[in-house]
């Protein structure tokens, strides 16, 4: 029989208790993502001295402050750039980046693109709440069409940014998107993402009742959490319905957000390739010296 750990033991191990309780609003999904990360780290049994957290600016970027491990709270959008630096300095570290949708897709978009392209060994946990919550509810690039924000008072007319599709196109090793209301799939995904060599992106759809929900008639916490249940669908189900379903069914699922693991491949990461390059050049040099 497996000894089941309780949340209390977990909190003692991972939580920086002086910082608790969080500043997050009532009904926010960020705390849930933090807890899933704790469970995943607990399951993996990593040495917490060898794990570094990095974050930018925003609600999601306060998360490393609550974890009893080393963390960087960096400038807006540059969390991934700093994480690349950590990984380059010492590739033994496990780097986990907490970032928000504005931080990762909006302001730090280019850093994200190039880290994914180089396939740098890190785990990016992007918490997507469709809005810049901490700075007052400006429109984020991931907000669905028609959603209302302080900078879009008559509804959003820009098409939303699908960050998972982008990461898949760039060839990231592990790409997954989950909601926060189902615990086991995200915990498994975080585990796989940390274990994976190469870039792994985990997107979480987290409710934000204060900044997003209040303006979009979802201010009630229960209603807002149910919105995520009603407007998401498993990727496999979506594919089946799109292939074999009737017109009516297709119409129903057309606008839903797919959840699931989108990409799971094993491509050599940047630092593996770099080590191979160094070895190759050393070998070449020793041969040329030997030839003289």
């Amino acid at each position: 029989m497996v000894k089941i750990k309780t949340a209390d033991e977990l909190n003692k191990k991972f939580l920086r208790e002086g910082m608790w309780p969080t500043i997050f609003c009532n009904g926010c999904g960020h705390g849930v993502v933090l807890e899933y990360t704790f469970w995943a780290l607990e399951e993996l049994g990593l040495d917490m001295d060898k794990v570094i957290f990095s974050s930018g600016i925003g609600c999601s970027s306060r998360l490393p402050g609550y974890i009893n491990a080393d963390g960087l709270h960096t400038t807006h959008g540059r969390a991934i750039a700093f994480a690349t630096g950590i990984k380059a300095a010492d590739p033994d570290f496990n780097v986990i980046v907490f970032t928000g949708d504005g931080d990762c897709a909006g302001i730090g978009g280019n850093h994200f693109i190039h880290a994914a392209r180089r396939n740098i060994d890190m785990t990016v946990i992007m918490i997507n709440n469709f809005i810049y919550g901490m700075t007052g509810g400006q429109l984020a690039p991931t907000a669905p069409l028609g959603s209302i924000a302080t900078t879009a008072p008559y509804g959003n007319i820009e098409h939303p940014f699908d960050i998972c599709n982008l990461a898949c196109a760039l060839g990231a090793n592990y790409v997954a998107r989950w909601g926060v209301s189902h615990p086991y799939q995200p915990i498994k995904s975080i585990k796989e993402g940390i274990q994976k060599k190469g870039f792994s992106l985990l997107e979480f759809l987290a409710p934000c009742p204060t900044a997003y929900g209040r303006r979009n008639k979802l201010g009630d916490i229960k209603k807002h959490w149910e919105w995520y249940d009603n407007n998401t669908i498993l990727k496999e189900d979506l594919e089946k319905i799109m292939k074999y379903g009737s017109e009516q069914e297709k119409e129903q699922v057309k606008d839903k957000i797919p959840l699931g693991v989108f990409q799971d491949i094993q491509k050599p990461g940047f630092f593996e390739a770099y080590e191979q390059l160094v070895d190759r050049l050393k070998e070449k040099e020793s041969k040329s010296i030997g030839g003289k």
Partner: protein
Amino acid sequence: MVCLMIEVREDWCKGCNICIDRCPVDALEESDILNRRGVRPPKLKEKNDCNFCRLCELICPDLAITVFPDEKEKKPVKKTLLTPVGGKIK
């Protein structure tokens, strides 16, 4: 005795009631006491079907709930063997 199965850190609870909404067997309710923030933390109902699925523990955004499976009281566990390993049992 019933209340020993679930422990809530009352000063951490923000009163979002997600645990009450999400409980699959509807075993939780608001308690009578107010905490420091002026909200009512959850507690187990007097008569409940709690099967230790630990969803409230896993889903609480403030990490305030802890579930202690009571080994003496043998209740049939519905649905799943819930060890938090992401669907797999070691």
